[in-house]
Structure formats: C-alpha cells, structure tokens
C-alpha cells in the first residue's frame, strides 16, 4: 500500500492554494450583507486606483468657485459634483481623497495590529509580570480620551501622513492587544501548545507559529471593523486640521474647508460626507458578512 500511495503524495501546489482562496471568497455569496459591503469597498478601491487616469481635473487646480453639480466647465467638460469655495473640482478631489484614505487606513491598521498582536501574544502567553505591565500600560492608554491623545501626538510631531499612522497605532493597539490577549489565553491551554513546549520550542516560535494562526479568524473580522473606525478617525483628524497638510485632497479636510458654506452650498460638504460614510459602511457590512459566514457550518 505504501509504495502505491507514495506516488500520489505531493505538496499542495501554488495553484491548489489559489483555488482554495477563491473558494473561500466564493463563500461570501452566501451573505448578501457581506456582498454589499464588499461591493462598496471594492468601488472605492477602484476609484482610488483609477484616480490618476480618470479624474477629470487636477485636484488642486483652482478654477471657478461655487459651481453647482453638473455645471459645464470653461474647457467644455462638466463639474459633475460641482466645485468648492476655492474653485477645485469636487469629483477629482473625492477620487484622489479615496487614494489618501485607502493608503493610510490599511497602513495605520496594519501598524496597530503589529503592535497590538505583539503585545497581546506576550501578555497572554507569558502571563505574570509581562501581562501585568502590558495590561496596565494598555489600561492607561485606553483611559485617555482618544481625541485628546490624537491632538497631543499630532500637535507634538506635526501633521503628516506618518504621524497619523503613529497616532492611530498608539490609540488602537491597546484595544487590539486586549482581544489578542484573550484569544491567546484560550489557545495557550490547548494540548498542542503543551506538545510544542515539551519538544523544546522557543517562546517566539510558539507565539507566532502555534498561537497566532489559530486566533486569526476573529482578528480578520475585527480588522475589517477597525478599517472602518480608522477611516472615520482619518476623516476626523482631517476635519480638525490634523490630517494631511493642505492642499492635498483629504475627505475630512474637504468637509472642514467648506464648512462655512454648508448651508448655501450643501454639495460641498455632503459629497465628502457620503464618501466617508459609504466606505465605513462598506467595511462594517463586510465585517458582518465575514462573521456571519464564519459562524455558519
């Protein structure tokens, strides 16, 4: 028997893995809510990607201010979403703004997760002093009003993309650490962790190779939700003038700049608002869909 089966034993090829991932994505069809979410997110991703080619105007070019949506531009084109109070094309700014938010939101989330997962694994696996110290640090950060925290961090280091990432990492990592710590505490009691310890594995191997892959499910769902929060945060920071330095297009910043005209020219603020909320909604629905699928069997 062994001779026969030996022929058929081969490692799964790259193709097999691709097929498996595609099958997992195909499961998404079972959740209409998740599909809507994925569609919204995908829409904005495409917008961000095609902005350099498809945006009708330079987002920072000042043309005729106070144009309503649909006005014909001097060069014969159309301001589909109108222009803002400096005369910039809102459609182009929204498209370029998508690029900003879809670059910084994943980057900030990724950094927050790297730090949060590291802290959570250490606290949950090592326990004892590690846990006490890391948990207390997390408690202190969490007990700070988040907005004040952002203002302090960015006021200290100045407004720039990287500082937004640092501020968001600083504020979100403790919450992620709490989740990872809880999941780790559960997994570390499993027999396979005992087996790894008794074959003399090091702590980092156990944390990264034995524990982390088994807590990924809830973390993926949480990451989707957190994308949404981070999107809002970037918007809020932009609104407060703590986002990207002007004149770069930034949805939050657009709302702030046109705030004074909100009543007479609502389109200037409503359009970036819709952009933010549809992306956040997209992430949240996607997270709901993923959770729904993961609990079904």
């Amino acid at each position: 028997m062994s001779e026969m089966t030996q022929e058929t034993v081969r490692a799964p090829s790259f193709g097999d893995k691709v097929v498996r991932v595609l099958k997992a994505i195909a499961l998404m069809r079972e959740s209409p809510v998740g599909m809507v979410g994925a569609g919204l997110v995908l829409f904005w991703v495409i917008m961000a990607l095609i902005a350099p080619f498809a945006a009708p105007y330079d987002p920072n070019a000042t043309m005729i201010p106070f144009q309503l949506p649909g006005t014909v531009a001097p060069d014969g084109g159309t301001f589909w979403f109108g222009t803002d109070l400096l005369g910039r094309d809102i459609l182009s700014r929204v498209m370029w703004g998508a690029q900003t938010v879809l670059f910084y939101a994943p980057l900030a989330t990724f950094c927050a997760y790297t730090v949060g997962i590291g802290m959570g694994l250490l606290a949950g696996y090592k326990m004892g002093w590690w846990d006490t110290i890391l948990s207390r640090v997390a408690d202190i950060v969490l007990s700070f009003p988040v907005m004040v925290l952002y203002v302090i961090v960015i006021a200290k280091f100045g407004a720039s993309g990287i500082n937004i990432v640092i501020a968001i990492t600083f504020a979100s990592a403790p919450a992620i650490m709490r989740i990872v710590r809880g999941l780790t505490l559960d997994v570390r009691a499993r027999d396979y962790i005992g087996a790894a310890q008794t074959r003399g594995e090091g702590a980092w191997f156990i944390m990264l190779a034995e524990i982390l892959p088994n807590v990924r499910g809830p973390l993926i769902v949480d990451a989707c939700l957190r994308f949404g929060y981070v999107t809002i945060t970037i918007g809020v920071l932009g609104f407060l003038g703590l986002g990207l330095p002007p004149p770069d297009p930034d949805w939050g910043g657009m709302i702030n700049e046109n705030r004074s005209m909100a009543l007479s020219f609502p389109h200037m603020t409503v359009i970036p608002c819709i952009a933010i909320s549809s992306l956040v909604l997209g992430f949240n629905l996607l997270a709901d869909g993923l959770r729904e699928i993961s609990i079904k069997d």
Partner: protein
Amino acid sequence: MSETYDGPLLEIENLSISYYTRAGEIPAVVDFSLTLNAGESVGLVGESGCGKSTVAMAIMRYMGNNGGIVGGSIKFKGRDMVQLDDEELRKLRGSEIAMIYQEPMAALNPSMTVARQLMEVPITHDGVSEDEAWKRAVQMLADVHLPDPERVMNAYPHQISGGQQQRVVIAMALLSNPSLLLLDEPTTALDVTVEAGIVELIGELAQKFDTALLYISHNLGLMLEVCDRIGVMYSGEMVEEGRVNSIFTWPKHPYTHGLFGCIPLPHSDKNARPLMAIPGQLPLPHQRPQGCNFGPRCRFFGDGRCNAGDIRMDAVTTDEDPDHRVRCIRWNEIDHDEAIPKPDERPPIEIGEPVLIVEDMQKYYEITDNSLKALISGDRIKYVKANESITFKAGRSETVAIVGESGCGKSTFAKVLMGLETTTGGTVTLNNVEIGGLEVGNRTPEQLGSLQMVFQNPNDTLNPSHSVGFQIGRVIKKFGVESDPAKVKQRVFDLLDTVKLPRAFINRKPRQLSGGQKQRIGIARAFAGNPSTVIADEPISALDVSVAAAVTELLMDIQREHKTTLLFISHDLSAVRYLADRVVVMYLGQIMERGTTDEVFAPPYHPYTEALLSAVPIADPQVTKRRIVLEGNLPSVLNPPPGCPFATRCPRKLGDICDRERPPLREVEPRHVIACHIEVEELRKVPPVITVSEDYQKEVEDRLGS
C-alpha cells in the same frame, strides 16, 4: 385529557430527521421507531454521530433552525408532537418532558442562584406562589440527596461541585413532575465515583416519581445498570433493540457484537485475549452505502444481499424476548459464537530494568492568601500539595497506570515529568538522569525526545493551522533525529505507516481527520524521537468505543515493538485492568495503593480502590458487583484532611485516628503497598468487588482453550 390516556407514553414511528447545511440535506436519523411506556427506562447507545442525541432533540422538537423532521411521527401521550404549535410545545417542555444534559455547568445559569432557577419551574408551569415554590425546591433538593438544601438554594452554581450541580439539574428537571425524562449523557462529564452516585439517584427517583427515562449514552456498562430495554444505533439507524439481558447475552447484529469486542471486560487480557476493534470508520451521513450501513465494515457482508436495498427491522424469534428486533437480513444465519475468530495470542511482555524511578517526589504550589484574616494572623503563604511523597518504579516495556479522579494530582505529576513544572522535593530519575528539577528549556534534545506525551483531547492535540507532515516533521528536526528534508519526509512516512494511516495524510490538516485518526497522529508524534518513556494522559477517554479499542491496541503494539515504558494516566479502571502491568492509585495528590494489576484488582484493597472498582460500570450481565457509593465531595486541595486524605469519604473509616494521623504504608507483598490504618489482615477479609459467575468463567476458558 392526559389523565384518561393509557396507551404508551411515547411512540415514535418511522421517524426521519435531516439537517440542511451548505453541503445539502444531511439525513441524521432514518426510519427510527421506538415505544416507551410509562415508568419504563429505555437506553439508546451508539457512537458519536449515530443520531442518538438528534432523536432526543426531536422529541423536544428542539432542532435549531437547520434541522427538520422529514417523515414519520412522534406521539407523546397520543398527541403528535410534529403538529403542535409553539405555545403548546412551550407548555409541554419542562413540565411533561424534561431533559438533562451532559454538562451541568452549561445547563445552569451562572448568574442566578440555585433557588431562583429552581423556583422558576413551579412558578412558570404550575403558577404557584414564591413561598410554595421555595418549599417545593427545598424538598426536591432533599430528594436528590443534597446535604444542607437551604445552603445550596442560596449558592450560585460555581459554588457547588460538579456532582452537586448535576443533582441540581436533576432536581430542576423533576420539579414539575414530568412523565418523561430525557437524559443525554448525564454522567459523562463526571468522575466515576460521582457517576455511580448519580446513576443510583436517577434510578431511585424514576421509581419514586414513576417517570419514564430515555437514557442516551455511549457507555454500554452504564446501560446495563440503568435500563430495562436498549436500542443500539449506528449511522442514523436503529440496528438492534430489545431487553437489556437479551442484547447483552445474545446480540444478533454484527455491529452490536463488534461493540462488545471493543470493551475491555474483566476476562479480557492484553496478551491472551486482546480487544477486537471494528475495522473501518463510520460513514459520513451523505456517503452512506446502499443497503446495510454497516455493510462495508461487516465480516459477514453478503454481496448482492446486504447491499441490495433498504433493510427493515426484523423480529428475533430465537430467544424469549418479544421486543428483540434487529436490522440484519442474515441474523439467523450467523452463529456469532462460532464465527468469532480467536484473536492472536501474544507472548507476555518481558519487563526490563527500571527506566523511571520516582522517589518521594513532592510538588507544592505556593499561593499567597490576601484576605484580611490571613493578613492579621500573618499566615499568608499557603501550599497546595498537588503531589505528596510519590514513589514508584517503571521498568523497560512496562505499562504503569496512574489511576485517580479529577484533582488527584495525576496531571501535575505528568507536568513535572515533562518539565513544565519542577519538583519541590524528592527525585525523579529517567535513564539515570535526575530530571525532577530540570525544566523543559534546560533539557537536551535527546532528553526531550526520550520522554514524550500522548494527550487526552484529540481535537486539541494537533495544531489546526498546520499540516500533519509539518507537525511530525518539526518534532523529528527538533529532536535531532534527522535534518535533511528528504530524510525527514521519509521518517514521517515511516511513522504514518507505524500508526497505520495512509501516507497521503502528510498533507492533511487536522480538520480533515476523524478523532481516532488525530489521536494516531498524536501517537506518531510522541514516538518520533524514539522515546524510552511515553506518558499517555487519558488517550482514549474522548474516543468512541470502537475507535478507542483500535487506538489502545495500536499504542500497545508500538510499545511492544519499541520496548517503551508507558505511563498510562486514566480514570477508567476497565481499560487499566486490561492493559496495565502495574497500577498506582492516587487520591488528593497521594498514593493510596500501588502494586501489580492483579494485586490491586483483588483483595486486600485499599478502601478507595474498592470504591473505584465498584463505581466502574461493566458491560457484562455475568458479572456481579458489590455497590459502594461514596458520600460527600472531594475535599479541597487547599485544605486537605490532616490525617488520611480519604478519611472524609471512607466507608471503612476506623475513627479518630484516620482524621488525625497519616496512614502507615503497609507492604502486603514486595512492591504492593497500601496506605491505610486498617491492618492488612482485616483488609484481606473484604470480599472481592467483582465476581464473575462460575459457569461463565468456565465457558470463557473453554472457548479460549478450544
């Protein structure tokens, strides 16, 4: 209307139940019929996935949102449960039909006191006042023999022990005086001595309240003790039913027969009469074969007959039991007594020089008491004596069983051996190296590889994220057995061959394996570094009967081949009697008795050994047992009795001396030691707990001799 009804209490006819999942319709139960009369107790046995719990859920009409009854009827007191609407069902559930689940802690609400949960039943179903409900609840707690019912009433579930919790659940189920009680593995999560108490209680209460019982379990021995009739289920079908005695004495279905071959009984022996596992695996519900579901695993399979079409239940006419029915078309042709192939006899094991020597080992945990009282008295540091003066030797090729209930310190002992904890006194010597104080990080790869462990829970033993090949390969590399990738792979193949799994499993993820297969991979992993000693921590207790038999045999074959010392940690005395050469009985961290298996299982016994032996159900009607039910609970390890640890529950307690002084170690034979205040001569007079009828003993010997 129910007062005038005098037909059978429960009639299930041709019931079929399906679940709807992504993979499509999964038939969980097919063509199931059962009749239950008032006051009768009927058991359903079968391995996991056979549909026995689904039947119980269907009777309650509680099947989640993806299950449904696709055919047949369930009549309770003549009313068809399938037709009832939600309101009518609500009235029936909990008042006429009650259910007891496996996990008492999961059945009780942790945020409500016992009183509130119990009183809810009469208040909701009978509309009585709070005072009346309180009175009834206290009375019922007294009926389930809970000491001090008033105290229990005000306790939260976590404040009482597992056995007490299950008694509370039973009390809750009985409060509305149901006519039918469904018990789904009610004692599986409990220790054997606690189980014995609960089983006795259920029987007594069913008599007292004239309640019919539908008892679901995988434990055939338990069925024999509690049921009038039993039904054996296999792969969604009832394959055999009848009175307990006829099923146990003249089983007609090859599956039922196979099950009995898998259970270690008092007369089975690992050398002369090994267990006979059923070959193959339970088919998945959507891959059931045509005709007889058991066909592919059956030794009597007749092609063209057994797989021709659906097989109906047929009445067995060769015995006096009118209820005996079997789903086998060849039942009348097969003579099971003749057809049993004599299992291969194996030469006895030669036990070599001592490999593991444990001398006076102790493990204390230090805990700091932060209460005000401790602060004032200055007595802040307390010790949990998890292990106290553990002494024994294990030789090469020897199987030493460590027996005890939860909390006896056997897992702590395993942790110390594995280096996850260090001793606080005494010595542990493995291959002439002291390892008691050696943490796992300080052990050499050879030391690590020479002492490995097989874990209890098959679903936990493998990391779900990695392939089988990675997990075994990692061990091989880690222990420095091989480092070249091609050789590592070859070694993984060899190990898969050893545990009798196909080589293609190297790429499988654990979720693609069954419980028994996972446990085999766990064994392969433990033997990867050519260990001299393997600790098996309840390796079969989470497996189904037929799978457990195969895994047990496999483990012993490998052990025999590699001359490995096996430390078998278990609470299952039947398995221990079958495979162990020596037995160590532990209670509250101390050794109560140790000796060879024959010495421990025959008088003189330690009173605790005696109680344990009596508590284990034996699936053989020819065996009679003396019943000893232990009173009280396991004392807390934080505050153990100062004298003999067993004194608080011992039925043979002498008096004050047991409470005050540590019992002396009495050497009955060389290396047979009993820790008890009672003189050995007195203990010798105790009659054996288990007696096999003489005729039967002769019959077994004849059969073996022929």
